């Protein structure tokens, strides 16, 4: 039970980073295809649900961790911030990613790229919190 919870929780975290990588291709003007944006958003939704629900499940399941532990609360707050930044980045990229070849000129406009890179930093901070578990 614990093994599967942990595996699916970690796999979900991989999906979140895959979203960040896909959005990086847009931020670096390497991608313009709206279907890739859709893949990225789907991965964030599935990964976000998995990390959050399974993470809380793990916190309840494992003795020594509590849902109100500082590092777990910090992680949840960071996830919420990352989700909002990602939503804003997506709004910036959606008009540009209208077709497989269209929109190259406006893809990577500063606000969307800024939101994306900020989300990337927050996701990195989330990973640091998960590995170091400060206060645990």
């Amino acid at each position, binding site marked *: 039970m614990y093994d599967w919870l*942990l595996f699916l929780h970690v796999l979900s975290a991989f999906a979140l980073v895959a979203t960040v990588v896909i959005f990086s291709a847009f931020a670096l003007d390497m991608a313009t295809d709206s279907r890739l944006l859709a893949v990225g958003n789907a991965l964030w939704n599935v990964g976000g649900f998995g990390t959050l629900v399974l993470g809380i499940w793990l916190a309840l399941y*494992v003795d020594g961790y509590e849902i109100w532990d500082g590092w777990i609360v910090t992680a949840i707050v960071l996830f919420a911030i990352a989700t909002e930044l990602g939503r804003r980045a997506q709004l910036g990229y959606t008009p540009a990613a209208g077709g497989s070849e269209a929109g190259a000129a406006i893809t990577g406009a500063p606000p969307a790229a800024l939101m994306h890179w900020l989300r990337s930093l927050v996701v990195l901070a989330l990973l640091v919190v998960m590995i170091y578990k400060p206060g645990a």
Partner: protein
Amino acid sequence: MLATIRPDSWSFPLLLHVLGAMVLVGTLVLAASALILAWRDGSASLVRLGYRSLLIGALPAWIVMRGAAEWIADKEGLTGDKVPSWVDLGYSTAEPGLLLLLISTVLAGLAVRRAGRAERSGGGGFSRASTVLVSLVLIAYLVAIWAMTTKPV
């Protein structure tokens, strides 16, 4: 289930290993998505994206992941005769995975050249072969993630 706390000195190499693995899998997902879409509609720009994500994303990420794996294995004393099966599984997916990654990068590069000559060809057979290999590597690394997290004896 009781929480286990690892020594602080293990955290940084573990962070690098996990980060490298996450970026590696993320770039493989990007490359596979781009190449699969290119397979369907023959887009040269998607083939180029698949190639670039393998070359400047997946290969450097593999080096970070593998280098940090060696570092953390050394810290944990999981070397020599003391290598458990889950670490062995990690090695046996990482190294062949690199070989397939290199081959698929070369194939994607050839597909980019071909697509440059004939727009909408999508790189033809080179691109499709690269798509298959990248998908295989991705599946192998998902198995590795399972082994790294569940640590079967």
